[in-house]
């Protein structure tokens, strides 16, 4: 007996799960699509296959480009069949596949044929498909047909052309604008929806011409628009015109108001509502204008249709903000909506009532709401809490019952956002209504006795610390606060310790007792709690003597931290040093210190958004940065920092550029790295530098980057020693080495295990120009003369064939890395000779001046005479060496 029963159940399950698309697979369906190519088409079968394809697309399956193209070509074959149902499916799938321009050509002729067909359904759909997939060039070919279609006697065809026109107006406005006459004719159509579509298109064509819109509105508001949708459009256009015409408001009567008011008596609900809403949204609407609109909305409130009730109560809710008196007439209907099945409606009704309610009705209202609160969702409760807060601010005398209400709902179940809204409201009420302070604080105290949210507990403790000591009897709060020290987690305990200290600082009478309590906290098992207790005991003079708390301590306890927390993150990389930490050394401004921010490597990019590469930093900033790294502190004064040199192609996985910092006896490479892969976290990032082609350099230090999260640039450094004062040059090959960890993009958390990986960077060259500072002189001749001829070195060089004189000049300037003076870097066109003046400061702070005389020697060959004067003989020689070897 039992078996058949089980079997029956199985059958039932099968039936529930049954779907014609059960186990459908993309590959198989694509195979099936081959039937489109059969010489003898089976329309039913083809329709089914298209339905399956559409089903897959609808379920979110995607076709590759190749698959989509194949399906598209196969589908185009189906135009042979004259089965209407199949053709409809063909139209739909062509739109879904959104073929590319070169594919569109294949179906264009078929669609154009359909567009001129005798069958209305073909014409309408072919227009919609063709306009969806076409581009501008084809549009001019079919424009003639479209214009005809707009005034077609079949409304479906006309609507299709008009709606397509609305879409095309976005891409090809100049063409669609030419159809204005036909569209205007269609506005007069007897078919409701044609009128709607024509009006929408006509307005969009003319929307930038205020006068034309004005004319359109005034002619249509007098005539009769048949379609309710078109009438809604007309109301929207009318209110737009009213908004823009401010000149007539002085005379009293508002233009077109009569039209809007007339629409309140329309037979279609959507028009009535649209008009009522338009009236309530009029600028500076008077209560006389408002009354008829409110009356119809009031009727909607008692409608059997939830949509109508919702629409009406939502609009009245908005009106209540600006014209609470106008809405009071609806209060009785509104009150009955508090028990509405639809909770959105009930919430809107309550908040409206709270806005319009008067002092005498508050108590009754609160009673109703109390019953209602238990069975609505948190998000609605938050809305209600906000409304109650504003009501309480409006009627401060009612604070007792409102505060009671808030504390009651605070004790009930609820999520964090909801509880936070309540706590915030109570805090605001305590601040703004002095009489409410004592009871409000006690409510908060009771709440933290049993509060599951650490954030709220600490916030309340902080608030208690500020407000509590100022009350008449501060001692009654101590118990609540000290209880936290026993019962809560470390964060809350630490907060409670700070609050106790604030009471101690402000209330001398409580000091001895506070000291006792703080001393007990010295044995807490959390170091932050112990540290705080110690700190406060010392600052407050916890040796038992009750002394007046001095201002400095109060400032410390109550003052705000004027340093952005983001900047303090750099402390996480803080290396212990002899010097005491000084809060003043932490930059206070976040934005002007991108380097400090970039050092905050341990956090994800903050809301401030770390700049991807950082702006070109000044030497000052670099100097500050480098001197903060102990390994480099002994290198002496930074001589020069180069501009960043990119070591990766743009848009690679990791973007790295390097800044060359030149010291007297050292070189530091600062690699600025950016990780552009959101799914990765790089750790222990270093650059392995191979200096085998730079013989005079020896690596002395390397500072790895601990973490490189996505899109938050960080730096790693490598330092080399080189002979003092020598402008050693060389080539360095670089390899980025790191441990890569996968990051879950949804949570932002990295996996524990990482894989070591390397990434080849481009080579880096250290050239002579890196040792030259571009320093200009204002008068080159004076400087040249005063330098004297003692260390002048002059020689001539052949530069070989060059593209132009200017190109040769630039090449030499770049080679030397010096500052051109007096605009001599510009070579006048067609000149055969040029003199260029350069100045700079060489490594070791040696001033250098250079005079270059270029001349064309033969058709292309450039000859150059180089004269160098400097304060140091060897430097003058070095310049010549640079040019000779360059």
């Amino acid at each position, binding site marked *: 007996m039992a078996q058949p029963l089980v079997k029956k159940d199985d059958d039932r399950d099968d*039936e529930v799960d*049954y779907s*014609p*698309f059960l186990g459908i697979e993309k590959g198989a369906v694509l195979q099936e699509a081959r039937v489109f190519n059969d010489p003898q*088409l*089976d*329309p*039913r079968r083809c329709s089914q296959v*298209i*339905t399956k394809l*559409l*089903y897959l697309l*609808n379920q*979110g399956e995607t076709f590759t480009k190749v698959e989509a193209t194949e399906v598209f070509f196969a589908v185009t074959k189906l135009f042979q*069949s*004259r*089965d*209407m*149902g199949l*053709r*409809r*499916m063909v*139209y*739909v799938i062509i*739109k879904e596949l959104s073929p590319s321009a070169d594919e569109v050509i294949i179906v264009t002729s078929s669609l154009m044929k359909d567009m001129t067909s005798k*069958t209305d359904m*073909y014409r309408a759909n072919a227009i*919609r498909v063709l306009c*969806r997939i076409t581009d501008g060039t084809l549009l001019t070919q079919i424009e003639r047909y479209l214009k005809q279609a707009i005034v077609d006697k079949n409304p479906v065809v006309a*609507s*299709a052309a008009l*709606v*397509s026109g*609305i*879409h095309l107006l976005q891409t090809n406005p100049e063409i669609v604008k030419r159809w204005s006459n036909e569209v205007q004719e269609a506005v007069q159509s007897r078919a409701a*929806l044609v009128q*709607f*579509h024509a009006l*929408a298109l006509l*307005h969009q064509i003319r929307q930038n011409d205020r006068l034309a819109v004005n004319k359109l509105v005034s002619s249509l508001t007098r005539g009769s628009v048949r379609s309710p*949708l078109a009438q*809604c*459009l007309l109301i*929207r*256009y009318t209110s*737009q015109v009213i908004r823009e015409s401010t000149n007539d408001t002085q005379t009293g009567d508002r233009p077109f108001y009569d039209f809007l008011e007339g629409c309140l008596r329309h037979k279609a609900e*959507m028009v009535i*509502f*649209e008009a009522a*809403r338009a009236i309530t949204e009029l600028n500076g609407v008077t209560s006389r204008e408002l009354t008829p609109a409110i009356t119809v909305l009031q009727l909607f409130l008692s409608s*059997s*249709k*939830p*949509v109508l009730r*919702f*629409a009406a109560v*939502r609009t009245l809710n908005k009106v209540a903000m600006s014209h609470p008196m106008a809405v009071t007439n609806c209060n009785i209907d509104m009150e009955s909506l508090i028990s509405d*099945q*639809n909770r*959105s409606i009930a919430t809107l009704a309550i908040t409206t009532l709270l806005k319009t309610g008067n002092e005498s009705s508050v108590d009754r209202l609160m009673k109703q709401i109390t019953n209602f609160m238990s069975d609505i969702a948190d998000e609605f409760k938050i809305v209600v809490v906000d409304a109650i807060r504003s009501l309480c601010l409006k009627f401060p005398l009612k604070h007792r019952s409102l505060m009671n209400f808030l504390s009651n709902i605070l004790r009930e179940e609820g999520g964090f956002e909801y509880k936070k809204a309540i706590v915030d409201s109570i805090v605001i009420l305590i601040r703004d209504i002095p009489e409410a302070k004592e009871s409000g604080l006690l409510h908060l105290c009771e709440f933290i006795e049993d509060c599951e949210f650490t954030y709220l507990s600490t916030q309340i403790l902080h608030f208690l610390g500020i407000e509590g000591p100022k009350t008449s009897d501060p001692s009654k709060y101590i118990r609540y606060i000290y209880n936290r020290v026993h019962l809560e987690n470390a964060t809350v305990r630490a907060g409670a310790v700070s609050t106790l200290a604030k009471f101690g600082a402000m209330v001398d009478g409580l000091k001895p007792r506070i000291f006792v309590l703080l001393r007990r906290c010295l044995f807490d098992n959390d170091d932050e709690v112990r540290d705080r207790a110690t700190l406060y005991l010392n600052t407050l003079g916890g040796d038992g003597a009750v002394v007046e708390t001095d201002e400095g301590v109060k400032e410390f306890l109550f003052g705000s931290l004027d340093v952005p927390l983001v900047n303090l993150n750099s402390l996480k990389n803080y290396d212990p040093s002899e010097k005491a930490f000084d809060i003043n050394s932490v930059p206070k401004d976040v934005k002007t210190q991108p380097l400090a921010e970039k050092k905050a490597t341990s956090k994800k990019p903050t809301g401030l958004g770390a700049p991807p590469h950082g702006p070109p930093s000044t030497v000052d900033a670099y100097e500050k940065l480098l001197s903060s790294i102990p390994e480099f502190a002994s290198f002496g004064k930074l001589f020069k920092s180069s501009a960043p040199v990119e070591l990766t192609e743009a848009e690679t996985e990791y973007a790295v550029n390097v800044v060359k910092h030149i010291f007297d006896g050292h070189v530091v490479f600062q690699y600025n790295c950016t990780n552009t892969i959101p799914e990765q976290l790089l750790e222990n990032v270093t650059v392995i530098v191979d200096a085998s082609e730079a013989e005079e350099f020896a690596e002395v230090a390397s500072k790895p980057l601990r973490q490189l999260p996505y899109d938050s640039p960080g730096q790693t450094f490598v330092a080399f020693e080189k002979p003092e004062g020598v402008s050693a040059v060389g080539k360095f090959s670089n390899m980025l080495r790191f441990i890569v960890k996968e990051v879950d993009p949804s949570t932002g958390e990295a996996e524990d295990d990482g894989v070591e990986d390397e990434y080849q960077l481009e080579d880096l060259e250290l050239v002579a120009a890196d040792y030259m500072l571009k320093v200009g002189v204002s008068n080159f001749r004076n400087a040249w003369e005063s330098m004297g001829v003692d260390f002048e070195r002059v020689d001539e060089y052949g530069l070989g064939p060059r593209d132009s004189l200017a190109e040769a000049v630039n090449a030499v300037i770049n080679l030397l890395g010096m500052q051109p003076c007096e605009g001599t870097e510009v070579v006048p066109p067609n000149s055969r000779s040029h003199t260029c003046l350069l100045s700079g400061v060489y490594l070791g702070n040696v001033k250098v001046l250079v005079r270059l005389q270029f001349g064309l020697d033969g058709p292309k060959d450039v000859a150059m005479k180089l004269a160098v004067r400097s304060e140091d003989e060897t430097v003058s020689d070095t310049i010549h060496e640079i040019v000779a070897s360059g």
Partner: protein
Amino acid sequence: MELCPTIKNILLLDSEGKRIAVKYYSDDWPTNAAKEAFEKAVFTKTQKTNARTEAEITMFDNYIVVYKFVQDLHFFVTGGENENEIILATVLQGFFDAVGLLLRGTEDKKEALENLDLILLCLDEIVDGSIILETDANVIAGKVDSHSMDAGAPLSEQTITQALATAREHLTRSLLK
């Protein structure tokens, strides 16, 4: 403000919130994941309400959603927060009634999936790229259900086997009812 009434999406889900047919007309949900998340949110928000006799309405994430259920079919129409709620409800009613007509009274998931082609055509006839095309259920259903040959079709295309297949289908359907 958007002057022309705009439909953001139309959804037909089953009693577990799974898609039967959906159509999005707005870029607010660029990926399939975003769409599915929206559908899930809409479904969980509305599933406990009774939207069987009258269309219901809710508002969340700055969208207005009107919805109506029959059997295990859940119909939704979404618009922007400033949209005229009654216009949205009219579109919903048009869709709802048209599907009812097309499924000939047996409105459930099984029947809907078996006639998915009709439902997809129905969606195609109601809204074209966020603009309301037609709201009258009879007109919509009429446009979808014109399953005839076009006048000039040669008889040879309709083979005897096909005719027989059609007849058999009609017979089984009427027997199953």
